[in-house]
């Protein structure tokens, strides 16, 4: 069925504009409501944040006065003094290796019959110097081999050849270095 509009063209146009105007009113009204809503939410957020901000500021101020109390300053000074003493004690205790471990590591190495007349430790170079007397050359070589094989504890043996010139009644001396791990406490 065909609808025939008998109104004049201008009136028809005017009616179309009025429909658009009505729709526009709806859109503008909705926009306005949403603007007001967003504005109110922002405003509420602002007050909420300011309230939170003030609460935190109060907490900070309260803690600040608590932390800066005279009693805490005294505790800080006491702790610092104790820490300094403890760290000094530990540093001094660590500053010197336990040389008894070196002596104990060396003790089983000389073969029976050999006499060690001097055993010296040079702490600076971490070096041991020994001298002694052996009834035979073989025993001196055996001592040399024993130290050489104890790589866990010693290394870098300096072994003068004059140690083995005489076959009997050998007066010997040599030096060797101490492994760092033996000196670690």
């Amino acid at each position, binding site marked *: 069925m065909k609808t025939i509009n008998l109104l004049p063209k201008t009136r028809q146009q005017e009616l179309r*504009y009025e429909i658009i105007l009505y729709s526009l009113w709806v859109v503008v009204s909705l926009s306005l409501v949403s603007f007001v809503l967003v504005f109110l939410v922002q405003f509420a957020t*602002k007050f909420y944040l300011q309230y939170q*901000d003030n609460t*935190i500021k109060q907490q900070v101020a309260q803690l600040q006065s608590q932390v800066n109390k005279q009693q805490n300053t005294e505790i800080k000074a006491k702790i610092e003094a104790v820490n300094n*003493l403890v760290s000094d004690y530990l540093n001094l205790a660590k500053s010197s290796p336990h040389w008894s471990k070196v002596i104990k590591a060396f*003790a089983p190495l000389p073969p029976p019959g050999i006499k*060690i007349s001097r055993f010296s430790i040079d702490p600076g170079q971490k070096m041991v110097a020994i001298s002694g007397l052996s009834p035979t050359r073989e025993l001196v070589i055996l001592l040399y081999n024993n130290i050489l094989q104890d790589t866990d504890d010693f290394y870098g043996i300096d072994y003068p050849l004059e140690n083995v010139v005489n076959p009997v009644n050998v007066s010997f001396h040599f030096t060797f270095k101490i492994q760092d791990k033996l000196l670690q406490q």
Partner: protein
Amino acid sequence: MKKTPAKNKIILLLLVWLILSVAMFMYFFKLLDGQNRATLDSMAQERKDLAALQAQDASFKQAQADLQELAGKPLQPENFFTKDISLVNEIQTLENLAVKYNVKMQISGVAGTIASLSNAGTVTPIGAVPYGINLTGDFFQVVNFIESLEHLSFITNPTNISIGAAEGGNVVASMTANFYLRK
């Protein structure tokens, strides 16, 4: 009065809506958003300060508890280093060790005054008192003595150890070491 045509009303309404939108988005929303962001930034900083202060406060409380616990310990840190210039306790301890291990001990070279002591290179003012110690006895007892010396309650670091043969199958051990005195 002439009625305003609908077309003009549309244009007017659109114009008003546009102005309102621009005002809201470019000014009011932006203004409040800026203020809220500034408050949030300030809150973030304050929260950081608060966390730091809370940690500091907790640390003080822990420190106080630690100090109380430390006060109940038999050995106090202030006793780690003696203030007794006569070093009576230290020498007595060494003499007791010598008796315990049946070695003959001789201490030498203890000299100086508290003012003349060289600093031990520590944070707290601690002076080093160098001394020499000679031990004569059975090899294993001498080694036990040295080992005990390294584990005393006070520090006396032995250095420059030298062991030699002595009469009767004994050995003689010479060492240098330090006593430490709190100035």
